[in-house]
């Protein structure tokens, strides 16, 4: 067969790695995929509930906390990904599998960040919530989701809490989606709704971080910078920090 000239070969060699993805690309796309294939919202809620709830098994806390805050996904995607995706992605990569109901023999203990999503999972660490394959899972009230009959029912307060968190995540995702399409006003509207419904919600800190971004990108730099500084004073190491600094022109 006709071969390529040295000239063309040289070009292909020089360009070969031009299209390689970065780690951030890999993490960002994965987070997006996880959001779309569903189950994330409901299970994410369960993860957060378990991490925050005193009723969660004590042994669960370190693992879930790790899944929520310490995965490589968090490290890799912070600069580019919105809070909704950060939350969903982190949950999807770790807590998602950690909290799925057990239908298989327990697997060996594996680092949370490397667990395959579709793999059989270890023991349930909190009251299991059925996963949904529907990407509209965010619209489902977790309190209405069927529970695994083999497991004890969680306390009603836990379910109500889960419903609140579900609603919180939904509003923050709405705000993030608005920001990503450049609609700061819609983002602020969702954040205001969050503030009205969940003034001291689990994600209230993230809400204020996203608000700072929305204000700054929406042209209200003065208010945005004030909000950013308030946020950074309390959560300088937040996954949102670098994004906030970039949006509000603040030095590292």
């Amino acid at each position: 067969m006709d071969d390529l000239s040295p000239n063309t070969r040289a070009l292909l060699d020089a360009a070969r790695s031009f299209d390689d993805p970065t780690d951030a690309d890999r993490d960002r796309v994965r987070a997006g995929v996880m959001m779309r294939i569903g189950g994330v919202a409901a299970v994410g809620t369960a993860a957060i509930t378990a991490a925050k709830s005193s009723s969660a098994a004590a042994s669960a806390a370190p693992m879930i906390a790790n899944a929520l805050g310490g995965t490589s996904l968090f490290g890799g995607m912070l600069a580019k990904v919105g809070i909704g995706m950060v939350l969903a992605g982190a949950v999807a990569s770790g807590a998602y599998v950690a909290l799925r109901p057990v239908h298989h023999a327990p697997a060996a203990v594996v680092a949370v960040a490397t667990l395959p999503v579709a793999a059989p999972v270890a023991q349930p660490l909190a009251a299991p919530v059925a996963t949904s394959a529907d990407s509209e899972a965010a619209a489902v009230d977790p309190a209405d989701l069927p529970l695994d009959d083999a497991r004890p029912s969680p306390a009603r307060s836990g379910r109500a809490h889960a419903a609140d968190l579900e609603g919180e995540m939904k509003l923050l995702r709405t705000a993030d989606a608005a920001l990503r399409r450049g609609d700061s006003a819609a983002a602020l509207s969702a954040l205001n709704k969050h503030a009205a419904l969940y003034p001291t919600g689990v994600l209230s800190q993230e809400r204020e971080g996203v608000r700072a971004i929305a204000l700054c990108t929406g042209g209200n730099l003065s208010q945005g910078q004030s909000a950013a500084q308030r946020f950074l004073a309390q959560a300088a190491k937040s996954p949102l920090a670098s994004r906030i600094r970039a949006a509000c022109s603040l030095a590292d």
Partner: protein
Amino acid sequence: MAVVRPTFDQVYQETFAFVWRTVRRLGVNDSAVDDVTQEVFVTVHRRLGEFEGRCAVKTWVFSIVMRVVQNYRRSRRRKGAAQPITSAVVDPEILADTRMDPQEQASRAQAGRILHKLLEELDEEKASVFVLAELEGMTVPAIADAVGANVNTVYSRLRAARKQFELALERLQAEEVNRNG
């Protein structure tokens, strides 16, 4: 014999870089690369149960890439997109790669832009076989599986693609010489 199916996570880890590169090389606009790649893996997730292990995972995934990219192209045509399919924007993260010296970065970015420009001149079938053979190092039989054509057809497309690519490169270089006088 039972099919040993990889998990979604295994497929993702194994093929993400390949999918990402291929989507870019097949002319998807920079701004749509995330969405198109996501769509590929959402489809992979949905159809993983159908994977029967009769070909390599990469080959199976490519067949999905092709369909998603074709849908993307059709959608763009319907919307009458006026801008070129690819842009020459270079990812700042690539330029900021501290492992490469600036000259090397510039050289790679320039070569990458030329590559995209030349690939745009190939039709979809030729571009696919050219990318898989010359940039991904896949064998012709594997490409035949991936694109759903017989081996002779793939050889024929590859031969034509190489010739067209070479001519386009020569033309581009001649234009450059003329511009620089």
